[in-house]
C-alpha cells in the first residue's frame, strides 16, 4: 500500500518483480541498476546466502523530488523464486502498489509460469490485493531463446491475463526499461485515481515518469527521450 506522509510530503511506492525461479527477476533489477543514474537510486541490495539460499530477494530504491517539493520514493523488490520460499514471497508482496510478472517465454517453462501466475494471484489475495485493479505488467522474458513461444501465443497470453505484455531479453537489458515504464504509468494512473496525485500533490503523470526516466539511459529502448519532460 502506497504510503503518504503529509507532514514530510513523502510518497513511498512499492513495486515488486514476481515470477518463477530463474525467470530473470534479479536480472531485471541488475539491468535497471546499470541504466538508472546513481543520483536517483540507492544500492542494489541482494540477499542471498550462497550456500543454503535461505533468503533470496533484491531491493533497489529510486527516489526523486517533484517540483512541488514532494519526495517520491520507489522501492523495487524481487521475490525469491524457489518454491520453498512461499512465505517470503507473500511477505515481500505485502502492500505492493504495482507488480511486474517476469515470465520465461520458453515453451518448456509454460507450466511453471502458469503455476506461478496462480500462486501470485493467491498470494495477492492473501495480502488483500485485487489483481483486477492492481497495476500489473507481464514481461515475456528470454525472447531470444530458440524455444521461446511465438507472437500468437503471446497474444493469447495477453487475452488470458488481461495485462500488458512486454517482450524482453533482460540479460541484454532489452525491454527492461519499457517494462518499468509501462508498469509505472499504470501505477501512476492507479494512484492518481485513488489518491489524486495531480490534484492533491501536484504531480502530473508527465512529471512522475519524467523525473525517473530522465535519469535512465534510454539508448536502445523503444521509449522517446524524456529530457523535455524535466
Amino acid at each position, binding site marked *: 500500500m502506497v504510503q503518504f506522509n503529509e507532514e514530510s510530503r513523502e510518497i513511498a511506492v512499492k513495486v515488486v518483480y514476481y515470477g518463477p525461479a530463474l525467470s530473470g527477476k534479479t536480472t531485471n533489477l541488475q539491468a535497471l541498476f546499470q541504466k538508472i543514474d546513481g543520483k536517483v537510486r540507492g544500492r542494489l541490495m541482494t540477499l542471498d546466502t550462497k550456500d543454503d539460499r535461505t533468503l533470496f530477494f533484491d531491493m533497489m530504491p529510486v527516489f526523486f523530488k517533484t517540483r512541488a517539493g514532494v519526495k517520491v520514493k520507489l522501492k523495487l523488490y524481487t521475490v525469491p523464486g524457489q518454491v520453498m520460499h512461499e512465505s*517470503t514471497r507473500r511477505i515481500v508482496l505485502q502492500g505492493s502498489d504495482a507488480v511486474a510478472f517476469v515470465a520465461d517465454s520458453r515453451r518448456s517453462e509454460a507450466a511453471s509460469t502458469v503455476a506461478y501466475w496462480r500462486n501470485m494471484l493467491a498470494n495477492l489475495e492473501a495480502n488483500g490485493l485485487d489483481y483486477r485493479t492492481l497495476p500489473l505488467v507481464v514481461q515475456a522474458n528470454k525472447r531470444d531463446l530458440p524455444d521461446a513461444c511465438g507472437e500468437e501465443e503471446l497474444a493469447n497470453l495477453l487475452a488470458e491475463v488481461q495485462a500488458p505484455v512486454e517482450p524482453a531479453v533482460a540479460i541484454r537489458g532489452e525491454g527492461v526499461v519499457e517494462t518499468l515504464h509501462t508498469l509505472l504509468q499504470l501505477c501512476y494512473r492507479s494512484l492518481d485515481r485513488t489518491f489524486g496525485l495531480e490534484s492533491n500533490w501536484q504531480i502530473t503523470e508527465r512529471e512522475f515518469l519524467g523525473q525517473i526516466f530522465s535519469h535512465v539511459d534510454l539508448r536502445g529502448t523503444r521509449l522517446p527521450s524524456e529530457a523535455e519532460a524535466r
Partner: protein
Amino acid sequence: MSLSASFLNQRLPLADLLDLRSFAEVCHSFAELYRVGLKVFDEAGNKLVDVKVGNADFCGYIWSKPLGREGCIATVGRVKSDPVGEESEPTVIHCFSGCRYVVQPILYEGDVMGRVVFGPFVPEDAPDIPTTLKSIAEDFDEKSARLFQAKIRQVPMGTAEKILKHFMDLLDVMIFTGHKNLIAAKLHIEAVQESYRELQDKNAKLEDSYQKLKELDRLKSNFLATMSHELRTPLTSVIGYSEMMLEGLGGPLTAEQREYLGIIMEKGENLLQLITSILDISKIEAGRVRLVLSEVEPAVLMRDAVATLLPLARKKGLKVSCEPGSLPRVVADRDKLRQCLVNLCSNAVKFTPAGGSVTVRGETLVGDRLAMHVADTGIGISAEHLSKVFDVFYQVDGSSTREYGGAGLGLAIVKSFVEAHGGEVKAESVPNGGSTFTLILPLRPAGAPAVQAAPPAAVSG
C-alpha cells in the same frame, strides 16, 4: 488468512541500522587518526556517538565564564539542529571562539538519517583568538586561551571536507551493510513466523477433516453392526425352514427338491458366515471383542481347521498336510483361535491353484510362545500389497471382475483376534511362489486388555 504488517514497509532509524558499539569504535579510531572530534546524531537529534579530541581544556575554560557558556550552548544547538540540506553538501558552522565545525547530513536511499559533526577544529586561515571570544569576560586570560587552543588541531578547510567525505563513504557502507543484515535477519524471522502460521492453518484443517472422517467411520461401523444383526434374523429362518423341509417335516420331497433345498441351505450358511464376519469386524472396530479363555490344545485346533477345509482342497486337487509337532497347551479363546486358523487355511486353499500344496505347521518358540504357520504354494502377494493385507476390506485385486471372492475381512479378523490375545501375525510371500502366514501366541495372554475384560470364571481347565 491475515498477514501482520511487514517491517519491510517501515522506515528504520539510524540506530537500528548500525551496530552502535562497533560504530563508536570506528569513530574513535577515526577521530584519533585525524585528531579532530566527531559527533553523530540521528534524525531525531539523539546523540549516537561523541568523540572529543583536544578541545577539553579550551572549551572547559570558555564554559567557566557565564557569557562563554551561553555562546557555547548556542553553538552546540546550531551544530545539532541547524537545518541541513538534502544534498550531500557539508555546512560549515563558525563558533564564536574561532573554532569551526563541519556538519554533513547522512543520506541513505534519499532520506536524511541524521548528521555527522566534524570538529571543533581551528581553521588554518584564521588561527587567532577572535574578539568575540576575548569579550566574554573582563578577566579573559588570552595567554592561557592560546595555550589551550594550541591543543586543538589546525586543519585547512579543504582537508576538513576531504576527511569528512572519506568518513561519509565509510558510514554509507556501514549503514548499507547494517541495513542488509537487519533485513536478512528480520525477514528470516517473518518468513519462519509466516510458515508456522501457515502450518498451523493446515494442521487445523487436517484435524478438522480427521475428526469428520472418524465420525463417518464410527457411523459406518454402527451401520454394519446393525445391518448384520438385522440380516441375520431372517436368514436364520431361511436356513431353519430349509432344514425342516429337508428333514421331511413339510411332507415328502422329490430328489430335485431335495437338491435345490440343499443348495438354498448351503448358500444361506455361506451368507450367514459372511454376515457374522461383518459383525465380528464391527465389534472389533467398536472395541467390543471379548475373549472367552480356556486351556486349548493347539494341535487339535489345527487338525480341526484342516479337516474343515479338506473337502474343498481335495476338490481343487491340492495336497494338504498338518504337522502340529508337540505344541504345549495355550490359554486362549478356542472359537476365535479356530476361526483364525480356518480363515488362514481357507485363504491358502482359495489362492493356490490345482497341483499345489497347503501345509499347516506348529512350532514352539522361546519366551513361552508358540507359532502356527499356514504355508501355501499359491499365487503369492507382491511386497506393495503385503503390508496392507491385514487391513479391513483390503483386497489385492480390487477390481469388480476379480477372480477370487471374499469380503476382505478374513485377515483383518485374524489380526484383531490374535492381537487381542497379545500375539501377532506375520505374512511372508514370494509372488507366484506362495505365501506363509504365521500366528504367534503367548502361552498365556497376560496383560492383554481384552482378557482382563473377560470374566475370570471363563478361564477354566
